């Protein structure tokens, strides 16, 4: 399509042609030919590179809200090209880059940097390539679908020190376990395994069983917590986003402290994830689709796991055995002084 400048030049060329014809001026025909040639070359330099451009994409499979994502596009065309604008990304996070020059049949790499603002599982949109040619008289645009997807994890924020004591009930179990480990109390016996010290063999039990057993002085890791995310379907996606960020932040804190931590929720069904990637992938894609957290709290109790509930709704449970984190800006659910709240960016802090 001719650009505004191209359309104007075509109109001027048409007027010059009429004038040249009426005046029978050969030099006006020469000028007219120059104007037409500019438009023709402008169209060629706009359409040809875009039409035959081949694009390949190299992008990470995962990233995080607020972190720079670099998408490398390799462009190659049989005719080269100039002044290309390349756009790529996914819904809500598309970036552009300018490619001044592509030599014919030589691949050129361009990096598009975007900072995703929202967690989610996204399919890459088509790569859009646009050009106004070398002289800006024609514009050509093409969309090239390459497929591919990216998972944007929620942003995590460090929990500031004033809020840590409020999480102590969940972290205490960890402290107790530590002390137990240091005291080296007898915990039990187990089968002998190559490498076990001979001094640890419990001869009496070995004799009774007919096989070697050794004493264990440390209890297996008992530090455990579950970060329960309220997936109440009545909350807005934006409020859930903030809750997800808070849950991810607490999950990261607990994991850093060595807890056996899981992140869980009840959407369409009960979900619980313990590994870092699983948990973050789940948090990236979670949607408000379940009952209020108070109704499903019982399903997550027990098992020796501390329970931390992150809830954006007014139905947050008032349970002294459960640590509840609610939004800082939610008047209806304002916690009592001494409670934990989270801000929109997922920062968990003391109220």
């Amino acid at each position: 399509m001719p650009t505004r400048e191209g359309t104007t030049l075509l109109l001027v060329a048409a007027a010059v042609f009429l004038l040249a014809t009426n005046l029978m001026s050969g030099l006006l025909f020469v000028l007219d030919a120059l104007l037409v040639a500019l438009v023709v070359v402008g169209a060629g330099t706009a359409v040809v590179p875009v039409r035959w451009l081949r694009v390949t994409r190299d992008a990470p499979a995962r990233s995080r809200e607020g972190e720079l994502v670099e998408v490398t596009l390799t462009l190659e065309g049989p005719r080269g090209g100039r002044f290309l604008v390349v756009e790529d990304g996914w819904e809500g996070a598309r970036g552009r880059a300018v490619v001044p020059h592509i030599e014919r049949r030589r691949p050129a790499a361009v990096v598009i940097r975007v900072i995703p603002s929202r967690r989610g599982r996204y399919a890459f949109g088509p790569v859009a390539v646009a050009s106004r040619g070398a002289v800006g008289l024609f514009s050509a645009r093409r969309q090239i679908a390459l497929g591919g997807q990216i998972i944007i994890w929620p942003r995590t924020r460090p929990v500031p020190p004033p809020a840590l004591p409020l999480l102590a009930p969940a972290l205490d179990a960890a402290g107790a376990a530590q002390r137990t480990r240091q005291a080296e109390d007898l915990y039990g016996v187990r089968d002998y395994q190559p490498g076990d010290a001979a001094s640890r063999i419990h001869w009496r039990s070995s004799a009774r069983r007919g096989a070697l057993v050794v004493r264990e002085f440390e209890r297996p890791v008992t530090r455990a917590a579950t970060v329960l995310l309220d997936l109440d379907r009545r909350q807005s996606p934006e409020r859930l986003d903030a809750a997800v960020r808070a849950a991810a932040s607490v999950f990261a804190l607990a994991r850093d402290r060595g807890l056996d931590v899981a992140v869980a929720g009840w959407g369409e069904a009960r979900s619980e994830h313990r590994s870092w990637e699983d948990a973050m992938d789940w948090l990236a894609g979670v949607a408000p689709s379940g009952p209020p957290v108070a109704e499903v709290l019982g399903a997550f109790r027990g098992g020796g796991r501390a329970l931390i509930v992150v809830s954006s709704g007014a139905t947050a449970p008032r349970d002294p055995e459960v640590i509840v984190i609610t939004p800082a800006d939610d008047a209806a659910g304002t916690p009592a002084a001494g409670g934990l709240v989270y801000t929109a960016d997922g920062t968990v802090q003391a109220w």
Partner: protein
Amino acid sequence: MVSWRRLQASGTPERSVPLRLWTLAAVVVSVFAVTAHDDFLEYRLTIPILVAAGFAFSYWRMGKRNWWVKVILALLCLQVGWQFLRGVMADPFHTSIPLTILLLWLQTLHSFDVPARRDLLFSLLTSVILMAVAAAFALDMTFLLYLAAYALVGVQALVHNTWQATQEAAQPAPGSPSRAAGPEQTADPAAPALRRGVLWTANHLLVTVLLVAAVVFVFTPRFEGLRLTALPFSAQRMLLDLFAGRIMNPAYPQEGGAEGELLRWNPRGYFGFGTTLDLRLRGRLDHTLVMRVRATHELNWRGLVFDTYTGTGWKISDPQLAQIDGTTMPLSIVHRRDEVLSFGARPTRVVQSFYIDVEQPNVVFAAPIAERLYLPSGRVYVDRYGSMRLPDTLKPGIVYSVISRVFVPDAETLRRHNGEPPPFIVERYLALPKIPSRVRALAEEVTAGQPTVYDRVRAVNRHLWTSYRYDLNIPPQRRRGDAVDYFLFDERRGYCEQFASAMTVMLRAVGIPARLVTGYLPGTLNPITGMLEVRNSDAHAWVEVFFAGIGWVEFEPTPGFPDTESLGGPAVRRWVWQDLAALVQARVAAWAEASPRAAQVIAAAGRTARTGLWVILVLAAGALAAGGVRRVAGLRTDPGPARPALDEAYRQMCAMLLRRGLRRRPADTVSEFRRRVDAAADLPEVGVISEAVEAAAYGGRTVDADDLQSVRQALHGLRHRLRR
């Protein structure tokens, strides 16, 4: 309120200095192109200086509040608009001149307020209009120099403008989701690719644009024009009223001396533009360009008509002139009885504009019969033969236009008009002095048995074409006596004046009214300017024969000159390539005619070219056939568009392996290197890439997008594996 805001708004400031400089250069070149014309010479320096100052001022004031600048510029625009209206009212026939001056001033004033890119684009657009104005005023090829310079700077300005626009396009719109997502990536302005991308692109593009423009020009159709315009005539060079009743020929100022006195030959002017034409004069005219003609049709430009043969030459016997005055253009010409009869046939409207380069006699050259004149004079004189005199000689720079009604009848039409001419024609145009009887006998012998007037005329025509030779090197007449008799029976060669005189006298001898006319041949078409270039050596004499019911019809008596029946076609052909081909053909023919050796060379070149053409055709057919066979047989070696990318991937692979201490020795083949790598490490990706390269390089396989994709994936995997 809105207006006040608009007054203060200046758009986003454009800070690209190269873009500003190239735009300024384009504007200045266009101003120089316009002011090359005589009517605008006084602006040649002032306007470019003011434009440059305006661009500098605008750059200095960029981003500041400039409402007072806009107010001053608006007032100045009103002032130049008023000047334009005054100019138009003072001379309504030359509106193009005040209009051009208005354009120049508006361009100048606009230069003081070009803060944004769109303002620079507007300047570029108006410079295109100025170039169009310059082209309309230009008469010669000098304009092409301005156009070449303009193309150079204009393309640079457009490319820089596109680069700026592209960078703007890469910026996210305010409030768009992607802006919320983060900053955008644009190329590093200092990158070498960018420097190549803008400057190199513009230079490279210029060559392409000029080549495409040449092709477009050659294949641009040209239709008949000069229909919707007031015809041009010079505005500033007026003719002075110095007319003293005679023809003033600058080449022969002594004309009018004693009868029988032989004039001294002047190669810079034609002796036939006077009240007499002496057939005893000898000499060659030079090739000086004397005038350019822009015309709808290609015709002879008649100047004077001679009715009386004196035995040694011709003279205009009726000195009476009718004076035609007018205060507005055009002047309508009223012809007298001898010419009016010509209006019985359906004529063609022929429009001609004459641009004088070398001073010419005070004669209006035009295709007969002139009807309307656009002159730099309010007065013209017309004789009984339809010839027109001006009050003063035609000085260089004078422009005048004529609309004529021309009738070029075909042979059948002329054969049908075989009636008796009226007595006043017979009385004047059959008169002959006492001529040798053998002239009359020859005329009767040549025309014997011809049934019609036209056939008799053609018989004389053919006789002269076939029995006599056109020669500009004839010696002076060696004996006294009748000049026509001497030409026909003694010299048998001569100038166009001898041929025209002989034909006129022979026709009169057999009772056909005829007269000798002088003027200029149509000239040579310049395919670029579209103008007929008339030279001194194009001065010519030919014959007009009277046909009852039609009037005076031109005939060409001189061999080697185009027959008048072939004239009357469009002055410019529909396609430029036709005119170019005709020009080349004419030049080659003239060269061949000038030298026998040249003729041999041209003939040999023609044979070689024909043979060469056949050889090229056979080779091309062979190559096509071979290509087809290879394609069918699957033998094509087209590496495919992805091959360079494959090689690049292999190079990257080698570089990665080198960083891990696996160096490919120069003597290593692809397979050898792969085996060495396999022995040293478990890297299956190397096998994938090596196999693809081998298949493409030695297996004759075309590399397609799928191959390339798998190679890229392997390269990607290898990179990750080596990082671990």
